[in-house]
Structure formats: structure tokens, C-alpha cells
């Protein structure tokens, strides 16, 4: 891990960096491709909606010796509908019967109990009316819409509208990808999935907000210098917070992985599994989008501003003019930058443009540097 710490240090100093902004077209392309695939998957395959969305019943028995195929027969006999039976990790059976209303299911439960030769009270039942899922879904969409509006307003106030829009695009991107994966893989969609999906909202933005925070801080006095364009500094922000982003994602994914492992392995199915699966997919997408989509998008939008355009012009002019005396300029630049307290250091230290000066700077005895 100290390697990562070391990486963090080098990223911090800008010794190594990845040009996220420069390669943004590539990542936009990849994202658009994934999004199209997701939408196609959604359109062609559709989502595998669980019992909660179509109405029906899920019965969970106690540990039993009845086999899956036997249970299927019993259930079909009792309900007149096809049943899906799963054997769970702890020896219990999970019987799903779609397309009946909550009133019928009492009778079915009693019949099943008779077939299984157990007490009806020992069978857990989850009975769902046909419109319950719609209500959950509608509420979820409503929540999503309200949240998006609020968060855009908040980000527009706390940061600026460009960042708000970029964050929103990243958010929609994450949700589309997650939904697309559900459609393509055919995971069952349950209220638990919806919970997970809605949680991604908070998480995806959480990550994005941290990068934006650093970006805002570093670009505060951007127009007062003419060494770096907005894109340069945005790139620096991403690289600077990269270690944190990785750490955050890992730390967020670890408990979710625990949930997924236990939910999938121990209980076989159910709320734990559903929530953690969609969280897992969404978190991964969220980490990706805050780095590769949101920030480059902000940079793109920002570069359209007249002030930033002017800055870019100045910077480019200065760079071309300074090519000849670069060495000298570098030294001076280093000099004034690196001694400064963090803000200005962040703002001015060039990440990828001046590798030569870095090497030299480090080689020198420290005393001489100032």
C-alpha cells in the first residue's frame, strides 16, 4: 500500500499523471458506446421485473427435504400457475408464483403447507398486488427527478452551473449503465434494486463533488496567471484526488462486497443481494464517471467561456514564445511555485508539460531551491 502512498505523492507533485482531459474524446466515445449498448439492451431485452412488479407471491419454506422439482409440482397444483423454485444456501426453498392477487395466496399457502407436510405458520409469504411495483417505481422516478432538480440547484449555487450540468450528465450516465447491465445480464429487478439504484445517486455525486471541490479551489485565481489553461488545472485536480477517489471507491465497495457475498452466498436471494448488486454496479460506474466524464465535461464547458478562451490564447502564445527559453522559465517557475502553500502550488505546478524541470529540481540540494 505504501506503493499507493508513493503513487499519491508522485501524483501530488505531478511527476506522473494521466491526461484525462486530453484523452477525453476517447472516454466520451467509450461512454457513449456503453450507453448506447445499455439503451439497446434495455430496448431489446427489457428488464427482468421481479414478482414485486407484476404481482404474485414468494413463499419461503423452512429447511426441507422436498426437492425443487417436487416443489414446482406442488406449487403449480396449488396455484394453477407456473412456479419458479430455488433452493437456497441454507436448505430452504423459495417459491415464486406470479400473477395472482393477495387474496388467493392464503389458500395457496395452506395447500403448500399441506403438500410439504408443515405448519402453514412456518411458511413465510410475501404477497404483492399487481400495482404495488408500479407505485414503488413511480415513487422512485419521482424521487429521482426531485433529487436531480435539487442537486443541480445546490451544485449551481455551491459551485457553478457548468459543474452542476456535468454532474447531472455523469449521474444519468451511471444510472443508464446500471440499468443497461441489468437488462443485458438479466438480473431480476426488485424494490431492493431500486433502493440500490437510488443510493447510487448520492454516491456518484459524492465522488464527483470531491473532485469539483478541488477543481474549484485550484481554479480560483486562474485568470491571474497565464501559464495553465483551465483544462490543465482540471487534469491536475483529477490526478491530485485520484488516490482519494480510488480509496473512497475501494472503501465503499468493500462493505458492499461483503453484503453481496453474504446476500448471494448465504441467503441465496433477497433484499440484501438485490441492494448490494445494484450498488456494486452503480458504484463502479460512479467512480468511473466522476473521473472520466464529469470533470472533462466541466473543462469542455469552461473552455467555451470568453475569459477561458482568452486565457488559453495567452497561455498558448506564451508557450510558443517561451519555447526557446523554456529551461530558464521553468526554473523560475519551479522556484516560485513549489515553495508556496498548497493552493498556488496546485494551481501552478505543471503536471505533464515539464518533466525535465522536475528531474532537475529534485536532483538539487534542497537548500538551493529557494
Amino acid at each position, binding site marked *: *500500500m*505504501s506503493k499507493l*502512498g*508513493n503513487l*499519491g*505523492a*508522485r501524483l*501530488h507533485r505531478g511527476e506522473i499523471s494521466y491526461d484525462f482531459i486530453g484523452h477525453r474524446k476517447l472516454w466520451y466515445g467509450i461512454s457513449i458506446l456503453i450507453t448506447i449498448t445499455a439503451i439497446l439492451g434495455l430496448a431489446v431485452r427489457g428488464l427482468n421485473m421481479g414478482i414485486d412488479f407484476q404481482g404474485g407471491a414468494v413463499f*419461503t419454506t*423452512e429447511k426441507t427435504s422436498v426437492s425443487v422439482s417436487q416443489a414446482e409440482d406442488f406449487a403449480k397444483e396449488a396455484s394453477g400457475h407456473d412456479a419458479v423454485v430455488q433452493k437456497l444456501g441454507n436448505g*430452504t426453498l423459495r417459491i415464486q408464483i406470479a400473477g395472482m392477487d*393477495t387474496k388467493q395466496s392464503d389458500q395457496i399457502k395452506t395447500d403448500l403447507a399441506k403438500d410439504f407436510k408443515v405448519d402453514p405458520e*412456518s*411458511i*413465510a*409469504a410475501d*404477497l*404483492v398486488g399487481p400495482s*404495488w411495483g408500479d*407505485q414503488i417505481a413511480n*415513487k*422512485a422516478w419521482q*424521487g429521482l427527478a426531485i*433529487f436531480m432538480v435539487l*442537486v443541480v440547484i445546490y451544485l449551481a449555487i455551491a459551485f457553478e452551473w457548468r459543474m452542476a450540468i456535468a454532474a447531472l450528465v455523469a449521474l444519468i450516465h451511471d444510472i443508464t449503465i446500471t440499468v443497461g447491465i441489468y437488462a443485458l445480464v438479466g438480473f431480476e429487478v426488485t*424494490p*431492493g434494486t431500486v433502493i440500490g439504484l*437510488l*443510493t447510487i445517486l*448520492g454516491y456518484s*455525486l*459524492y465522488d464527483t*463533488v470531491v473532485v469539483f*471541490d*478541488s477543481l474549484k*479551489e485550484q481554479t480560483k*485565481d486562474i485568470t491571474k496567471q497565464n501559464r495553465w489553461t483551465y483544462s490543465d488545472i482540471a487534469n491536475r485536480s483529477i490526478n*491530485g*484526488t485520484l488516490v482519494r477517489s480510488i*480509496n*473512497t471507491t475501494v*472503501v*465503499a465497495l*468493500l*462493505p*458492499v*462486497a*461483503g*453484503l453481496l*457475498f453474504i446476500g448471494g452466498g448465504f*441467503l441465496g436471494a433477497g433484499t*440484501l443481494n438485490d441492494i448490494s448488486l445494484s450498488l456494486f454496479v452503480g458504484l463502479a460506474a460512479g467512480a468511473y464517471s466522476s473521473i472520466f466524464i464529469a470533470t472533462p465535461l466541466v473543462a469542455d464547458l469552461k473552455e467555451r467561456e470568453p475569459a477561458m478562451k482568452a486565457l488559453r490564447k495567452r497561455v498558448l502564445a506564451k508557450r510558443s514564445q517561451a519555447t526557446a527559453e523554456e529551461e530558464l522559465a521553468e526554473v523560475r517557475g519551479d522556484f516560485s511555485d*513549489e*515553495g508556496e*502553500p498548497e493552493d*498556488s502550488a496546485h*494551481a501552478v505546478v505543471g503536471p505533464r508539460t515539464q518533466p525535465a524541470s522536475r528531474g532537475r529540481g529534485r536532483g538539487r540540494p*534542497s537548500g538551493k*531551491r*529557494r
Partner: protein
Amino acid sequence: MAAPKRGRSASAQSKPGRALALILIAIVALTGGMFLSGHTTPRLGIDLAGGTSITLEAKADQGSAINKANMDTAVDIMNRRVNGLGVSEAEVQTQGDRNIIVNIPKGTNSKEARDQVGTTAKLYFRPVLAQEATGAAAATPSPSASGSSTASPSPSASKSGTGEKATSSSSPSATATSQGRAVSDALKADSTPSASASASSSASPSAPASNAPSAAQAKLQAQYAALDCSKKAQRTAAGEGAKPGEPTLGCGESSGVWYKYLLGPAAVDGTEVKKAQAVFDTQTAAGWQVTMTFTGKGAKKFADITGQLAKNTQPQNEFGIVLDGEVVSSPYVSSSITGGSAQISGSFTQDEAQNLANMLSYGALPLSFQEQSVTTVTAALGGDQLHAGLLAGAIGLLLVVIYLVAYYRGLSLVAMASLLVSGILTYVLMALLGPAIGFALNLPAVCGAIVAIGITADSFIVYFERIRDEIREGRSLRPAVERAWPRARRTILVSDFVSFLAAAVLFIVTVGKVQGFAFTLGLTTVLDVVVVFFFTKPLMTLLARRKFFASGSKWSGLDPKSLGAKPPLRRTRRPAPVETKEA
């Protein structure tokens, strides 16, 4: 800009002990409170403890609006009904704007409770057009039928009773009726032996058909003729989809015999009953009776309908009290009842009278409800799920701790201590919120808590990375800790706010399991801020004074060398402008 920041960080630095003491006192106080209150474990939800949870959705098909007042009334009514069954700790609460959740703990008769809350339809007073006993039972004289027929002559008695009653109504002219079913028993010459007493007044069931010979009427008439109320399926179908303004069919049971009714359009709405109660009439020895008071509008309507009904002969002088398509009672009327209050008398037992009174006052649910989901969880499954949730949490926590230790070394102690404090606070608050606001820990809530481990740990990561950045800049630990704080603080606040916003929106807008999840997520996000401000930061300040950390020991996680720090700063050429950038 620099000055106030300095001041703040200086004061924070100088009093780290105070903040730590504050949070420790808070923990001790809360924990003490928890033990004092006797609720040392969070209340478990139905899916973890076992029991039955019913979700009902209000339907807006009856013309009354789904609003908060109506929903609250409905919850109140259901609460009384469920708890009236002797179900202890059953809870009824609204969720979202149109759902009601009824949670019934294990060990109680959930089926009966479900039936009770399930029959939550509206109550109407409809004039009876025709009635008849149905099924095989109809021929069998039941003992209580003859018993009730003795009550039939009571109208005069209760009429005088009405006059003497100290009700607030100004002119309680008459309500005197016998219990509907008793009367109907008496009417059926062929069904009950006692009926002979009033058999002369028996009207032919087909009488209403001549009054309104429309096609719809004829159809209804045919349905009425075919209706057999002794069959359950027919019974449920009979009153289904009945509109208040149209005639309909209904079934009613008395002493094990089912009667079928042809009912006119609703004359009075159940919501227009202001109050109804069972009283024991000692004055006239009429026994248990039910008094009811109408609202102003209801009183007028009731006076109109009773005035009309009184002119008819039996059974057309009866009105059926129809609850969810079932005729729960059909008293007859002998004269117009004005003044807004009335009695129903007959040979009620105390239970019968109270039931009827309950139905009259509480049966008048302002909305109709549809069962949306019914979850029955056995205690074994609940235990399994709780077990799995806790195990998942433990594994998740362990993984996070391993990662933190590997990455942050000594600093991870701070993180772990902070996680511990956060965990204790979460647990204690959950335990306390159970009795306080009815919070119940369900499976999604456990999930929320586990997911929150990540959010909480992330705040430390933000702060630690900041400190490390400062050290890389060449600062020694103490100033690094202080300088890193304002930045980290802002980042933590902004990101936690977004997270909290998501939780709050979810909590307000969504229904069902999502709410439990959102609540825990919101709670832990708030606690995260509290812990970082009052625990992690002061602890860091204190630890920065320790040699182990301050000297940058290899195991402290703050070793300048392994962090790749620059050599110490010399501030000779550092001019002021830099400082202004701090904020």
C-alpha cells in the same frame, strides 16, 4: 481571509480536549439514556423479528380526496380496530402520501387482523328495497332469531327512551328500531318461527321492481333473485363495485343465517356520522343500544330518508347500514328522525352494540383501501436475515479495517476509533429512536448502515489525504493537521450534504422498504459529520502532539519520507499573496 481562518483553527487546536469531552459526554449520556429507558436493542422490523406487514394503498375512486387529514383519520380508525383485537404492539402508520402500513408482530392472530384492516370500505345508509334469507340455513330457525323477535315490540319503549335521554339533540323524535337483523328475522314468515308476529307486514321481494322498471333495475332484480348469500364467493361479489348513487345488492348475516338485500342508492354517508356509542339503557330496560349523532348535513339527510322510509311498509321502512358491501345492520324506522341524533335498539348484547357503534364511528373510513402487499415472515426466517445482515456488516467492516490499516498504518487507529464512535452513536440512536419515533430496524436499514461504513470512512480518507498533502508540501505534522482541516472540512460538508439530500428526498418521496434504507443513510450521514468534527479532528490534533506521529514514525502512516515529502520549507521568499488564497 487568512486571519479568521487562523483564528478558528487556532481555537480548535487549543481546545481539542473540550470537543472530545463533549462527544464523550454525549455518548455516555445517550448510552445511559438507552439503559435507563430499558430499550437496549433497536426495535426490529417485521422482516427481522417475524410477523406480518400489510401495505394498503388508498384508492381515489370514491370521490373523497386523498389528503393528509383523510389518511390520518384512516390510520386512527385502523389502529383502533387492530388494537381492538387485542393485538399488542401492532402499529399502523402512513407512508408516503397514499399508503398505510400495518405491522403486526408475530404471535398474534395476523389473519384476523388482516381481515379487520382489509375490510376498510366505506359505510353507507341505504334504504332496503327487498330482503330475503338465503341458503339452506334460511330454513333453520335459530335460537337468537326468536330471541330478537321479542325485541321487535321495543320501538315504543326506546322511543320514549329517546325522549328521556340526556342527549344534546333538541328533538330526538324517534329512532326506535329494533336491530335490523332481528327485524328481518321477524319478517321472514318462512324462515323463523317468531316471524308470524309481524308476518303480515312482509313485503314481497319483487315489490321494488314495479317501482323502477328500467333495464338496469331489471338486471339488478335478476341478480338479486339469483343471489345466494350463503355462498362466500357470491357474497363478496354482491356488493363489489357498488356506487353510492345507484342501487345495489348486499348480504348480511344474523345468527348464522345469511340474508340478501336489494338496496337503494346511499342516502347518508358514513362519514356523516359524527359519533356513535354503545349505551346501556337503564331507564327503559331496553338493554344495550347504539346512539349516534350526525353532522349537520348528515342530520338533514337522515331526517329526509327516515321520513320517507317511515311511510313504507316492511321491509321497505328499513335502512341497511352497509359496510364494505355487507349489510351489518338494518333497523326499521317508524317516523322521521330529525335533530341529528338517533338510537338503534334491539336485543343487542354488549359486544354487538359496541361492534355496531365502532363500525358506525370508525367504519366510516374516509377512503377505500386496496391491499398492496402482505409480507409474512416467520421468526426463523427473520432470525436468518438478521444474522446474515450482521454477518455482512461484520465482513464489510473487517475488510474496510484491513484496508485502512494496510494503507494508513498508525492513522488507521484514528479511523477505527472514529468508526467505533460512529458505530456506538448509530446503535444507541437506533435503540432510542425505536420507542421515540417508532423507528424499526429492517433489512434495508441494516443495508443502509453497512453502506454508510463507506461514507463514514471516506470522510477520514478526505482528511487524511489532505494532511498527507500538507506533509508532502514539507510541513511538519502539527501545522499540517491544522491547515488540512479547513479544506477537508469543506469537502466533507459538501459531499455529506449531497449524500444527505439524496437520503432526505428518498425518505420523503418513496414508500416501503426504501424508506428504512433512506432513514439509516440520512442518520449515519449526519452522525458522520458530528464524528468528524467533534472526534476525528480533535483526536488528530491531540495525536499530532505525540512523538509517534509527530516524528513521522514509519508506522504512523505519516512518514514524510514514504509520503515523498519535500524538504522543509524556508519561508524567506514566501510573500503574503499566497496567504490570501487559503480560503
